[in-house]
């Protein structure tokens, strides 16, 4: 038995060293590694199964054009089932493989890895989730939200409601329907500030996890509180339920605006399709639809390989977000390689690369972000789209609102 154990241990050691040698070999060719965390099987699989292929397709497109200055990009995906220990393991694996940037996925994961990313000097991104305070690049030098945080989304939602109410919110009633977890509660402080500023009445309605039962809250919003507008911030399957329930009590969906995680085709389909959700407003941090040059190039790339375009491309909201995340990572690496032409870039170089991203729009799919060493959010830009005639239609262009209020909260959080 002991001998077998010895043999087993020896085999494991050999396997480990071979793997290490292989990865060392790969790096000597000037390959640049990006780590990608994914959730294709866990709580948010409706996102992961579409978002991650988008990310990979963009990387494949870059590589098919010769990579970044001749350096091929290798994206290593690791699925963590939305659990924290596998997330930590995947981070260490990415670090071992020499990743210069890591696309973290999941709010608890970005919290769990915040200290590590900073210690190891590897920039990690948390687009559309995670801590809003991480927009402060001085306090969290290696965390990049790179998309509107929940605070910015809250501010943008209030601004949108104001425009819908003909420019004044005075005396209006706004209901905030949210998933009762830290991410769901995060925007409340900003919304409360704005309620005082704009003189509207804000009432919060918590939906307890897992978010499939909200009949009482919705009835309250529609019939007792009689909200003039609903701002919804739900995750997973909950947005679909909210659409169904609001429809059931007869609340007009053209008076509902959802944050970014209740804004995809999958959410609408789950509620019974675009016919049911007619009028529903959804906030986006990436462009929606198939009509972008970069998506045409990806389809072109597949055609050249003699393959049909992947079916994930039909779910444009999450797919395009995957493309956006991939594109911003590649852009950061491109900036880093420009500063260091030998291509031996480190996490620190990639961090500086992120901080040089300015007005990189990819034909409208990416908002014109301006990421600096102090602002890692890049401006907090969003678009509002509406369900109309069987598809999403653009209502507003990229905008951000009440940036002074959001900035005040970021500053306060930094003092803690």
């Amino acid at each position, binding site marked *: *038995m*002991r001998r077998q154990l010895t043999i087993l241990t020896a085999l494991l*050691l050999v396997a*480990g060293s071979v*793997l*290490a040698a292989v990865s060392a070999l790969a790096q000597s060719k000037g390959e640049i590694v990006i780590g990608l965390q*994914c959730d*294709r*099987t866990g709580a948010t699989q409706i996102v992961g*199964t579409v978002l*991650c*292929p988008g990310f*990979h397709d963009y990387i494949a497109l870059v590589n098919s054009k010769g990579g970044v200055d001749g350096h091929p990009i290798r994206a290593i*995906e*690791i*699925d963590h*089932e939305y*659990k*924290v*220990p*596998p997330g*930590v*393991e995947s981070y*260490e*694996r990415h*670090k*071992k493989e020499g990743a210069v940037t890591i696309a973290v996925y999941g*709010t*608890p994961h970005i*919290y*769990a*890895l*915040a*200290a*590590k990313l900073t*210690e190891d000097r590897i920039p990690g991104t948390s687009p559309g989730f995670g*801590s809003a*305070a991480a927009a402060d690049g001085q306090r969290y030098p290696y965390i990049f939200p790179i998309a509107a945080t929940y605070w910015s989304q809250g501010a943008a939602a209030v601004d949108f409601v104001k425009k819908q109410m003909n420019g004044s919110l005075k005396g209006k009633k706004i209901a905030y329907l949210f998933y*009762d*977890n*830290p991410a769901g*509660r*995060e925007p*409340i*402080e900003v919304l409360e500030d704005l309620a005082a500023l704009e003189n509207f009445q804000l009432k919060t309605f918590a939906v307890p996890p897992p978010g499939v039962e909200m009949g009482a809250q919705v009835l309250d919003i529609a019939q007792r509180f009689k909200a003039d507008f609903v701002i919804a911030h739900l995750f997973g399957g909950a947005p679909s339920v909210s659409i169904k329930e609001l429809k059931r009590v007869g609340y007009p969906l053209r008076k509902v605006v959802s944050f970014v995680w209740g804004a995809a085709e999958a959410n609408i389909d789950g509620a019974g399709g675009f016919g049911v959700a007619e009028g529903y407003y959804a906030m986006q941090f990436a462009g929606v639809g198939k009509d972008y040059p970069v998506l045409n190039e990806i389809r072109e790339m597949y055609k050249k390989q003699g393959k049909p375009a*992947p079916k994930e491309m039909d779910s444009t909201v999450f797919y395009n977000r995957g493309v956006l995340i991939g594109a911003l990572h590649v852009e950061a690496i491109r900036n880093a390689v420009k500063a260091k032409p030998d291509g031996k870039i480190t996490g620190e170089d990639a961090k500086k690369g992120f901080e040089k991203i300015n007005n990189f729009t990819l034909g409208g799919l990416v908002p014109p972000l301006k990421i600096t060493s102090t602002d890692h959010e890049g401006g907090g830009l969003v678009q509002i789209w509406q369900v109309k005639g069987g598809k999403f239609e653009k209502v507003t262009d990229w905008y951000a609102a009440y940036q002074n209020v959001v900035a005040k909260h970021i500053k306060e959080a930094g003092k*803690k």
Partner: protein
Amino acid sequence: MIHRECGILKTSYEADMALYPLPIARWTVAALAVVFFLVIPLSLHEYFLSVANLVWIAVIGAIGLNILVGYTGQVSIGHGAFMSVGAYTAANLANRLGAPWPVTLLAGGLMAALIGAIVGIPSLRIKGLYLAIATLAGQLIIEWTINHVTFISGGVQASIEVARPRLGSYVLSSQRDMYYFLLFFVVVAIVGTLNLMRTRVGRAFIAIRDQDIAAEIIGINIFRYKLLAFAISSFYAGVTGVLYTYFLGIANYEQFQIGVSIDYLAMIIIGGLGSVLGSIFGAIFVTLLPIVIRYAMEAFGGVFFEPQTVLNLIPNLRLMLFGALIIFFLIVEPEGLNRLWRNIRSYFRVWPFAY
């Protein structure tokens, strides 16, 4: 361990109850200590040490849960919540009072023990599945409380950043440092539990598990010992939570949700109820198996499928294989990996003369 025991005759109760049943066991333990304290940390890459660290954290938690479920026979689905109690106690003490880790570790453990004993009160009247539901309620109440009481959670984000532990002026930050830090507590937990089970308290736990009415009749105070079992088990959970907090540098309530409680139950059931070695096997199995399956898939998946398909396949197949292997091992040996290991051992004990 793996020894022949022929020629060793036990002539007293002390000898039968000794921590090392055979003299040679000392040497095996010494050899294991060399492997775990020197060979592994000094030869392996940081990545493998990080995996080992996750295993160590799981080992301590699983041993703690096994004291309650395996040794005392009280089912609990609140282990994750007790961890969060320890984690937030430690995080608050460290951040508000600047307490060093020995203090926060002890305080986190004790606070979890207290809360655990309170959640364990229903065990005095109800058993089995009913008790499981009562502890489930405890899990949900604690989760809700931490989530909503900002005095505990330190803000709506319910996460508190904690500085790395220090030894004197040395900051334990690398995975190798954490490996030694955690391994120390693993050893304490193993030795502590093995000894606990040799004492009056441990035997009382086992008596309660086997037949609580009989235990009461022979003079065991059921009230005291059931709550004590909850307290000790929760103490381990609290310590696990504190160690996890130091390992990650942050206490975040989403790391201790109900899924974690289920995972730990899975560990001890797969490993073997009522055995320390079983807890260790279970923790290793549940933590490592997904990683091993992924490595295997990455190596061989490309032979059969296209890269994009492999990426989609790995996580799904991993779940399926993981489930299938759990079923396989439980069918082969319903009493867990520990029993499997003992069977192998007893086979080799008389080998090659099996009859």
